């Protein structure tokens, strides 16, 4: 560290000290009650953890392990994809052997988030439309499943029909939101979608007769094949598959289909139109791209993904309530997209799995979880804005070296 740099840091130590002092003041008994000593122990542990994570990250980056990984992916995409798929397929079986059923549930959840993140990536990453209220569409799908299966009665195969129904319903809301916001610039759009998300949540909370308000709806129907309910344990030879495991495979299939469709879409005429529109709306228009149609299509398709994810979520949990579709949920999905890399499908998949499993692993930090989460969001934007697995096309466009 050279002279002037050190001076800058010293300059910042002053305000930081005052702020720390004020925070300490806020911790005084009159305001807070009692400051528990283990809180500070927790903080120290946290700092150590952060330091270790930082070193590990540097090591990975220096040795270029991520790059090696990336190259393997591009040299032999088919084999790579297959091996990833194999891992995903075997994962619950191993966990079941170990008796860690809870983690299978977490795995199924993370697959739902894969669908969500891929859907949002289509809107934000490809089409460049910043949507912050994405959880609204997720909620619409989940509530649709919950309301129909509890009110109409749980007919054996109805929930399969609900998947396309929820997709269409969410897409309709997507269009409803998309049409009036066509003219809006990036951050205005962000705020309007945020407002839309909040309105949706308020409606979920207050429309007692339909959504049972804050108490939520329990007894959401489960998926059935023939006479078989997927929530019931199933014995396959020596293996016993419980409900979560079967759901895991069901959602895995859906997520695969979702990623595949998104991939095809990406390389289709529409996908290219989206990217063109994202880079320069005016230029795209002059090339004959119907910008309005493209935007609405992005909204509709993204929303449909979320709607489908919602149905799976409702059915997996068997219970929906407004807190599952809060602003924080939208932020979580958005940060998956950003963490993985905008416009990068594989990035979204990795980030979705990571962001579901990581908080679970961080259970021990309890209240500090969200604190770290916020901090990580800032750091990530500063350190690696292109995401964990940057989109190849996007990197080429930006003129930097592909990995």
């Amino acid at each position, binding site marked *: 560290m050279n002279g002037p740099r050190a001076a800058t840091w010293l300059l*910042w130590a002053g*305000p*930081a000290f*005052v*702020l720390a002092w*004020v*925070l300490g*003041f*806020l*911790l*005084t008994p*009159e*305001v*807070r*009650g009692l400051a528990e000593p283990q*809180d500070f122990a927790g903080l120290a542990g946290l700092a150590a953890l952060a330091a270790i994570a930082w070193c590990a990250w540097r090591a990975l980056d220096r040795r270029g392990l991520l790059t090696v990984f990336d190259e393997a992916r591009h040299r032999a995409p088919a084999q790579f994809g297959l091996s990833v798929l194999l891992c995903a397929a075997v994962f619950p079986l191993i966990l079941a052997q170990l008796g860690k059923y809870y983690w299978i549930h977490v795995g199924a959840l993370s697959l739902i988030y894969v669908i969500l993140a891929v859907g949002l990536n289509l809107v934000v990453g490809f089409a460049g439309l*910043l949507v912050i209220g994405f959880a609204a569409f997720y909620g619409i799908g989940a509530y649709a499943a919950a309301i129909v299966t509890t009110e109409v009665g749980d007919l054996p195969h109805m929930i399969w029909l609900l998947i396309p129904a929820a997709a269409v319903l969410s897409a309709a809301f997507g269009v409803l939101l998309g049409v*009036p*916001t066509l*003219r*809006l*610039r*990036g*951050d*205005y759009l*962000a*705020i*309007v979608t*945020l*407002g*839309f998300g*909040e*309105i949706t949540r*308020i*409606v979920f*909370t*207050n429309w007692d007769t339909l959504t049972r308000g804050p108490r939520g709806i329990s007894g959401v129907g489960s998926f059935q094949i023939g006479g078989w309910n997927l929530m019931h344990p199933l014995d396959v030879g020596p293996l016993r598959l419980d409900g979560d495991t079967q759901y895991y495979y069901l959602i895995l299939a859906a997520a695969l289909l979702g990623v595949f469709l998104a991939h095809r879409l990406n390389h289709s005429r529409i996908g290219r139109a989206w990217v063109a529109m994202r880079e*320069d709306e*005016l230029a795209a228009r002059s090339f004959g791209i119907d910008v309005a149609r493209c935007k609405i299509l992005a909204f509709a398709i993204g929303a449909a993904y979320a709607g489908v994810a919602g149905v799976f979520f409702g059915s997996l949990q068997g219970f929906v309530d407004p807190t599952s579709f809060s*602003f*924080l949920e939208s*932020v979580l999905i*958005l*940060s998956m997209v*950003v963490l993985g890399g*905008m416009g990068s499908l594989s990035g979204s998949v990795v980030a979705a799995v990571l962001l579901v499993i990581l908080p679970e692993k961080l259970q021990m930090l309890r*209240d*500090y979880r*969200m*604190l770290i*989460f*916020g*901090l*990580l*969001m*800032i750091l990530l*934007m*500063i350190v690696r*804005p292109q995401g964990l697995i940057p989109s190849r096309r996007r990197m080429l466009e930006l003129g930097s070296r592909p990995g």
Partner: protein
Amino acid sequence: MYALVALGYTLVYGIIELINFAHGEIVTFGAFVGLAVLAALAGTPLSAAATALPAAFLVSMAVTALLGVTLERFAYRPLRGADRLMALISALGASIFLMNAMMLAIGRDSKPFPAYLSEPVLQRGDLVVRQLDLFLIGLTILLCALLDLFVRRTRIGRAMRSVAQDQEAARMCGVSVNATVSITFVLGSAMGAAAGILNGLYYGVIRFDMGFLLGIKAFTAAVLGGIGNLRGAVVGGFVLGISESLIPAILAAPPFSVPEIFDYKDAVAFGILILVLMVKPSGILGEEVPEKA
């Protein structure tokens, strides 16, 4: 009060075109610092409204301004010139970070805010005007006017406006962009702190997550008035505050008679926001902003 919070947004947005999502948390922080000062002064000879309130406002505004600058330095400055989306997400992160930091420091439950100036000045049937209400409106107008003067009349204000128009050109003319942006955050955060304390005085309780809704509504107010426009933010704040209490009241009374509307009170603000953006994206007092490539 929305006007004050909206000012903070509009100031920052006007200068660096960033929606400071963490502004709501800055407001909350200001409220808690104010509460801490009032709690510290309680029982001392200085606890009278005439001395305690100014002290709370001054200390809170100063400390909160510091927080605002620190936030800018660490979360936003490294991202200046990067994709706007990156800064926006960083701002979201900052908001989550601050909200949870306050939750850890203060706890999840609401804290009572000491009552000041609660004597009625005017009472006619159901209508009660407290000293506090007058104080609130008066202080809001005063601070808005001061800020307006500052931005329009002083050298620093001129620097702020020049940075807002064109950072490169401003730099060439010898304006320190970093310093100017920092000052913007100082002013915005100080306004936020004042709004936070007023909020605490008005409602009597403060909570770690009160800034979120307040922040979004204030942003609505800022957009309503034309974002980046100080006078517009004030107008937007008043319009939003009035319509938020009037519209549900009107809809609940005949001829509409839907009393359930009060449950959806918060949705009204967002409804207004979406309507305004659809009809006139530049806001009530906003000038047309050409789309930037």
